[in-house]
């Protein structure tokens, strides 16, 4: 096995692309990111490592927009993300220029995934070390979508998904608790999912909300308020569980 994980991506005898798998490892070490799709809204939440005192936190935005109606969050190597995001942004504008229409979420996801795949089949390059969560609304139809891509170049649509650190536990939580929601309920679900693995508080989470009108980053105070609501609901549920036996 040791001989099949060199710098270029080639197959191992048992059909693995080790470089791609190592890229997935890099993703697993990255910040947790979660996306939840509602009926009229899509929410992205990302774990924020506590900012150094002297660092200007506004320059480390983890959720970025690719166009007016599409946003992206990722887990993994942030430097690779910058390159991929720039290419995607150019493609969004190029599409507007050639067919006079904004991209659909599926189109730009396909483009990003295609780019990630290209780097697994080219000489002298390594795969991008990140998985992306892409959200947006399709022009004209107004349908909200959530897609995920990974370093191998595969992509698929999701109702809710997580990537990065502890993504398995978040996904388990989502599978248990997902239901069709809209508006603020979707935001709460996304934050609840993220709080499973992240310390509570607006300091440690970055949340952005995509509606038909566009992308809106929630500020710390808002996130704190919602987190507090969630805490209160949790306590009420705990209390309700404990109370009935006593009443008997």
């Amino acid at each position, binding site marked *: 096995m040791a001989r099949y994980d060199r710098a270029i991506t080639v197959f191992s005898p048992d059909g693995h692309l080790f470089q791609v798998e190592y890229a997935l490892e890099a993703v697993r070490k990255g910040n947790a990111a979660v996306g939840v799709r509602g009926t009229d809204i899509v929410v992205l939440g990302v774990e924020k490592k506590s900012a150094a005192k002297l660092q200007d936190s506004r320059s480390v935005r983890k959720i970025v927009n690719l166009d007016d109606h599409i946003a992206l969050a990722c887990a993994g190597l942030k430097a690779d993300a910058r390159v991929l995001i720039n290419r995607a942004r150019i493609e969004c504008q190029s599409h507007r220029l050639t*067919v006079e229409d904004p991209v*659909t979420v599926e*189109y730009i996801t396909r483009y990003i995934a295609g780019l990630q795949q290209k780097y697994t089949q080219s000489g002298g390059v390594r795969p991008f070390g990140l998985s992306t969560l892409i959200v947006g609304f399709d022009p004209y139809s107004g349908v909200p979508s959530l897609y995920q891509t990974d370093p191998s170049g595969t992509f698929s649509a999701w109702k809710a998904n997580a990537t990065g650190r502890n993504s398995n536990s978040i996904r388990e939580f989502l599978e248990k608790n997902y239901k069709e929601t809209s508006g603020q309920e979707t935001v709460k679900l996304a934050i609840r999912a993220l709080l499973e693995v992240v310390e509570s508080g607006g300091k440690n989470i970055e949340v952005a909300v995509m509606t038909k009108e566009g992308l809106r980053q929630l500020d710390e105070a808002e996130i704190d308020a919602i987190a507090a609501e969630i805490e209160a609901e949790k306590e009420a549920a705990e209390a309700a569980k404990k109370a009935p036996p006593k009443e008997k």
Partner: protein
Amino acid sequence: MKLDTSGLESAAPVWGAPSELVDGFSVAPSFEVPNTTDFDGFQKEAIQMVKPAKGTTTLAFIFKEGVMVAADSRASMGGYISSQSVKKIIEINPYMLGTMAGGAADCQFWHRNLGIKCRLHELANKRRISVTGASKLLANILYSYRGMGLSVGTMIAGWDETGPGLYYVDSEGGRLKGMRFSVGSGSPYAYGVLDNGYRYDMSVEEAAELARRAIYHATFRDGASGGVASVYYVGPNGWKKLSGDDVGELHYKYYPVMPSTVEQEMVEVAGA
């Protein structure tokens, strides 16, 4: 490999039939030189002669019910009518039409190519391409061949998600969105009739009759237009050919021969 210099050898012998005196004596090697004094300009003349001055009449307009597309069917090479039955309305796909004006080969090839690109777009994106997108694809291709002699003056008409669409695209790279267009040597005559009779809320029959009349009048006055006036309608369910009438017959339909009153009759005179 030895260099092939056969092209440099003069084809004609020197001054008439070879004789023993002249045998062996050949002209200095040179390639064929065109028989003209203006070496720089002679090619322009040839291109101008061949370049069809877009001898045709095509028109299209958007109205309440959709898009009406019509064209004649004459192909001319200078003063020679090479065909009276050319299909100038090209079916790009079941919901989009293109019209042909300019070089027939150029129009046919690039419309076919556009059809391929539209189909690929459908397969990749799981939805039909818009008329805007299709016309832009064609315009970008034609722009990249700008100055290389393509001659295309076409209208892309179709029905997509946003309703009826009509664009004019030409080989200079121009692309215009509009409600009424006419392209070709007969277009001034067609515009006269079309602009006069146009109303946005016409029925399909009225619009078809307007289109037919406009083509007929253009073929009446323009020598490079004639043959058959085809009329197509593009609606929400795609295009449909409505009619194809010979313009000669249309003439007698619009202007039937009236028996004129005879003032003096010639009478047979019996024997003198």
